[in-house]
C-alpha cells in the first residue's frame, strides 16, 4: 500500500475530517469528534457576607459637639445591629453542593476514622441535621474547631450513655416539588452498586442498605439529576458498619 499526497497535504492541509478523541465522561451513544465534558467537584470557598457600610450623613455639621454626638449615635446603632445579628444567629450562606459534600465526606471518614463516626444525617425541608459520635470528647472539640466552625454552622455537643455527640445544623432548601418514587427506581437501575446492596420500595419510601460507596454513588446520582432537594432523606450508620438510606418524596 502506498500513500499519495495531494498538493494541499504537502502544505500541511488535509481534506479529511478530524480524528476523534474519546472522552468517556460524555454520555454514551454516538460521539462527536471531540467532547468538552468534565466532572467538576473543586472545593468552593464560602465567601463571607460583607455588611454594607453605613450611609454617610449628607448635611454638613458645623458644630463639633453635634458631630461627636452623631458619631456616637451611629456607633451605637452599628453595635446594636451587630449584637442583634450575633444573637439572632442568621442563617449562613452555604450552598447545597457544599452541604452534600460535607455529608459525603463524613460518610467516607466514618469508614476509616475510628475516633469520629457519622451516626445520622437528616435532610429536612429547611435544614440538614448531621449527628456525629465519638468516644473521646476531645475528638469532637477538635472537629468543631476545624473548618466546620469557620463556615459558621451552628452545632451542639452533648453526652449520652457514655458516648459523645455533636449535632450540626446545615442550612438547606429541601422543599422543592416534583420528586417521585418512580424516578428513584429508574435512578437505582442506572447506578452501579456493590454486591452487598439491598433495595426496598414501599408505597411512600425508597430504602437502600449497603456499603458507604453504594450510598455515596446514589446520593451523587440524585444530585447530578437535580433530585436531592425534591426529597426528604435520612442516612443512618448501622452497628453492622453498613449504611442505610431512606428517601421519601416531599409532600405537595
Amino acid at each position, binding site marked *: *500500500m*502506498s*500513500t*499519495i*499526497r*495531494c498538493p494541499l*497535504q504537502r502544505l*500541511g492541509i*488535509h*481534506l*479529511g*475530517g*478530524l*480524528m*476523534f*478523541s*474519546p*472522552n*468517556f*465522561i*460524555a454520555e*454514551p*451513544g*454516538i*460521539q462527536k469528534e*471531540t467532547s468538552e465534558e*468534565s*466532572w*467538576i*467537584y*473543586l*472545593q468552593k470557598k464560602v465567601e463571607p457576607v460583607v455588611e454594607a457600610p453605613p450611609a454617610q450623613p449628607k448635611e454638613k455639621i458645623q458644630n463639633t459637639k453635634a458631630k461627636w454626638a452623631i458619631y456616637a449615635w451611629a456607633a451605637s446603632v452599628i453595635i446594636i445591629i451587630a449584637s442583634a445579628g450575633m444573637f439572632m444567629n442568621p442563617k449562613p450562606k452555604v450552598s447545597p453542593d457544599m452541604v452534600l*459534600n460535607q455529608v*459525603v*465526606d463524613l460518610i*467516607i471518614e466514618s469508614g476509616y476514622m475510628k475516633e469520629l463516626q457519622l451516626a445520622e444525617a437528616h435532610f429536612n425541608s429547611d435544614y440538614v441535621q448531621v449527628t456525629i459520635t465519638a468516644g473521646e470528647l476531645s475528638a469532637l472539640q477538635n472537629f468543631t474547631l476545624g473548618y466546620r466552625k469557620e463556615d459558621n454552622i451552628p452545632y451542639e455537643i452533648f453526652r449520652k450513655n457514655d458516648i459523645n455527640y455533636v449535632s450540626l445544623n446545615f442550612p438547606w432548601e429541601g422543599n422543592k416539588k416534583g420528586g417521585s418514587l418512580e424516578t428513584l427506581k429508574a435512578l437505582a437501575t442506572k*447506578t*452501579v452498586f*456493590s*454486591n452487598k446492596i439491598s433495595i426496598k420500595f414501599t408505597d411512600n419510601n425508597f430504602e437502600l442498605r449497603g456499603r458507604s*460507596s453504594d450510598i*455515596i*454513588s446514589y446520593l*451523587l446520582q440524585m444530585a*447530578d439529576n437535580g433530585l436531592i432537594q425534591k426529597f426528604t432523606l435520612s442516612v443512618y450508620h448501622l452497628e453492622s458498619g453498613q449504611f442505610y438510606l431512606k428517601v421519601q418524596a416531599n409532600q405537595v
Partner: protein
Amino acid sequence: MLAISQSGATYNYLNWIPSESGPLVTHHGSIQKELENPDRIDEHYYEILDKIFSQVQNGDPICTFSLDSSSVLFSTCNAKDKNQEMINWHLNQTHDDELNKVIDYYHFAMSSESGKMLNIGFPKAIRQSFQTNMSLLKSKLNGLSVGIFSAEVGARQWMHADKNGSYLIWKIGKKKNDELLYIQNGELVSYFSIHRSGKKGKVNWQFGDSVAAESICKDIINVQNNTSKKFSSAEQVYLYTTDGNMKDVKFFHALELENLTLLNPLSVLETTEDEKVHEYNTLPLAETGNSFGGIDV
C-alpha cells in the same frame, strides 16, 4: 493539569502548567498498585488518585485519565450516516442484556469510505468510580480516555501528526504483539494488533480496514528484516511502548528511519528543571496525550 495514564498495574503521571512558551512540565513519574479486590474498584482508583495528587501538590487538582485498553471492549458495526437504529440492532445481535447492564457503549465514526463505527464498551462501574472519586477528592476530571487513543491525541498535539496525510501510532507490546492505529486524512482507517515473528508477521485482530492492516504488517516486517529503509504505508510513524519490550523500541529507533519518531512528550515539552530526559524510559508518558487535547504546544 495532572495527566495520568494506566498500563496494567503501573500509573504514569505528568503534571504541567501553562506558560508563555506552551505547556511546562513540573513533575513526572509513576506509581505501582495492583488491584486487590475487583469488587472495590472505586477504592482502588481513589487510593491511586489520592497518592498521585499528594505527590504533585499543585493546588486545585485538575486531571485527565487514560485507562488501560484491556479494561474496555471493542467492536465495529456498519452504520452509514451514523444511523442509531442500525447501531442498536448491531448491539442487540452481539451483546446480551447482562452485559448491557454493566457496560456503556460509545460509538465513533471510522473513515467515511468504510461507513463503519468503532464501538467502545466502557464499564459503568469504572466510569462511576471516577465520578465519585472526583467528588471525594474535590477535584476536576477534564477527560477520560483509553490507551493508544490517548497517545494518538498526544501525537497530534505534541508532534502535529495531523499535518500528515496519513500516520501510524505504533505501540510495541510484550512478546512482539503490538497495537496500531492507522489514520488517513484525519479519519481512523484501522485499529489492529500484529505479531512480529522472525521473517513474517500476522494480524492478531483488527477493526476497520483489514487490507490496510495486512499491508502495514508487511511493511513493518520488511523494515524489521532490513529490506526497507522507510515505512511506505504511512507518511509518518510514531513509536512508543508502556510495558513492552524496550529492546525492540531501541532496535527500530537505531535503524534511523526517516519517517519514524519516538512518541515521547518530554522530547517536545519544556520542563521546569534542567533534567536530562531519558528518551526511552519516559515513553510510557505517551498515553497522557488526552490531557493536551485542544492545547497549543
